[in-house]
């Protein structure tokens, strides 16, 4: 990790999907899938993005890769503002920014051979590798642990884990700088998951890649990330380096998430301290006002229903959006208290 210029910087990013209803299709509201989030990704690091379904983590991934048009905010990639870049100017950018998808069954064209799939980026981008496309593709296949002789086979001939490797090979074809991986292992069996996680780590070391890994599995995210951001209903509620976040989480939601993960240790099940949230995640169509977590939070007080807590840095690199953070270092009076008097 180098603490220089961030490779990717996201500022106050927003995506509201309009909801239309009735004969005239009037807009009656908006799903605030991503609502004012900011984060940076530095070169060579892995940022994990966790949260439950509907929290906006996949939308964030799609906004950053510009597969979706943001409704507000700013995305800066390598110093260039790409928030509203048009198709034409995006195309060269796609070389540097690639995506790994969740489902290795639907993300590969069943009528194309592996060679065609992995070679497609070269053709689309008009890149002519000096050793020829076929040779280049075979080298990449070897890199991700597939047999180069699989060049002429079709996706259905492969298992789920191998297909995910094909997807990764395609992603790597043009040596991108940033890879957004949206639930890269959640569709795979446990033993295969571990293979793919290890592969992603090896590739990162070998090719100096930067990852944004989007996942709901907190243990997988902890394993591969350097820093982790926790999302809830379109907001980042906590962001910190991995060690800090998992050992001393400050936001009550992060705490609850961590304690909800079943631990594969039967002796620990009795004496584990648990926080049980009640209810489900509220609808993003009509999120609770102020702190969005207050409806499920056991620490919530009046202020949480009226004043939205800002995402503040409470310790080195550890930012939290909560009025009553846990594990917080001695908070200088003011940061949490002022809004109450205001």
């Amino acid at each position, binding site marked *: 990790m180098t603490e220089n210029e961030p490779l990717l910087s996201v500022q106050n990013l927003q995506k509201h999907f309009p909801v239309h209803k009735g004969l005239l299709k009037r807009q009656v509201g908006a799903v605030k899938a991503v609502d004012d989030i900011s984060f940076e990704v530095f070169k060579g690091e892995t940022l994990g993005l966790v949260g439950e379904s509907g929290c906006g983590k996949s939308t964030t991934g799609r906004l950053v890769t510009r597969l979706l048009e943001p409704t507000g905010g700013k995305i800066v990639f390598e110093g260039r503002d790409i928030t509203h870049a048009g198709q034409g100017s995006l195309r060269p950018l796609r070389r540097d920014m690639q995506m790994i998808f969740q489902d290795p069954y639907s993300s590969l064209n069943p009528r194309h051979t592996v060679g065609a799939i992995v070679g497609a980026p070269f053709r689309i981008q008009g890149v002519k590798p000096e050793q020829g496309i076929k040779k280049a593709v075979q080298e990449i296949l070897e890199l991700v642990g597939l047999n180069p002789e699989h060049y002429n086979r079709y996706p259905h001939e492969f298992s789920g884990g191998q297909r995910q490797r094909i997807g990764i090979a395609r992603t790597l074809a043009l040596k991108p700088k940033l890879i957004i991986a949206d639930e890269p292992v959640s569709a795979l069996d446990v033993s295969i998951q571990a293979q793919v996680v290890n592969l992603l780590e090896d590739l990162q070391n070998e090719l100096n890649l930067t990852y944004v890994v989007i996942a709901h599995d907190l243990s997988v995210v902890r394993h591969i990330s350097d820093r982790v951001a926790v999302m809830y209903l379109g907001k980042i509620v906590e962001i910190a380096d*991995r060690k800090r976040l998992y050992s001393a989480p400050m936001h009550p939601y992060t705490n609850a998430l961590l304690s909800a993960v079943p631990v594969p240790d039967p002796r*620990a099940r009795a004496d584990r301290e648990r926080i049980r949230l009640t209810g489900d995640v509220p609808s993003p169509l009509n999120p609770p006002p102020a702190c969005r977590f207050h409806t499920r939070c056991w620490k919530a007080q009046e202020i949480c229903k009226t004043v939205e807590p800002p995402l503040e840095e409470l310790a080195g690199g550890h930012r939290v959006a909560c009025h009553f953070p846990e594990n917080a270092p001695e908070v200088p009076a003011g940061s949490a208290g002022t809004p109450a008097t205001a």
Partner: protein
Amino acid sequence: MSQQSFLDVKDLRIHFPTDDGLVKSVDGLTFGLERGKTLGIVGESGSGKSVTSLGILGLHKGGRARISGEIWLDGEELVSASPEHVRGLRGKKMAMIFQDPLSAMHPYYTVGDQIIEAYRIHHDVSKSVAKKHAIDMLGRVGIPEPTRRVDSYPHEFSGGMRQRAMIAMALSCDPELLIADEPTTALDVTVQAQILDLMRDLQREFNSALIIITHDLGVVAELSDDILVMYAGKCIEYGTTEDIFYRPEHPYTWGLLGSMPRLDREPTERLLPIKGSPPSLINVPPGCAFHPRCPYAELTGGKAGTEVPPLAETEGGHLVRCHLDKAERRRLWENEIKPVLETQ
């Protein structure tokens, strides 16, 4: 596994003839389960865990499956029983919680109607009595405002609520055997924790026998008394939850434990995956089905590839299907596997 277990499965085989060959989804499975106990069945996709559960419920009858072996439920044999008879047992004697409640429920009927239907098949009561019961059940599984919610349709429920409604439906006739097939896989972690707590409480209350089928070792560690690890249609290790987590003896079980990143330990540099991928059930490798992926296969002196190892007891009910001898397995676990897993 004594003769008199509440549920006794003996040498169960469920094979499906297909155009490509015979798929041996379940191939010689034997286990027992008492009332009030929980058995976790763990395995990867295609290991035969779901086929086993459908087999116990008699849901393969009338299909193409070839079933042999014995399933004894409370002194009654089910494999040879008529489909009508088994149908009479479903709901009352045994029930199932499915993975995906949205597809397991009928979208055109209200949640209440679906519970009422199941209840009235087994109980000769009026609709209004059955409805009261349905409201009572919905309340017990923690659905807020059950009197109003009983008239809702499945799509009006959130994922967690739907799963609760499924559980209410499964428990409505107070079944003695409950099979939960990946009951929380489709849910978010915070909701998963709620559902696991609920299942644990309800099982205590109803004293039913529970089989929980999952690929998530964390979930079985939370709920199970005993664990059965399946691979390619066979049981490869069976023991108490303590046996499986603290004294596992099969290399596949080691592999599963090494593949999981764990929140309760310091993160390792690397996970220890199992090489290769699960075999096709049409072409199960000869000998020990796991041998092509087993890092210790060469220690068996060639037996791994030719002979199917027997499921042998190592100690007090802990069964392992492996050619390595007991001392060797323990040595490997103590010296090679455990230290690596525990430095995590």
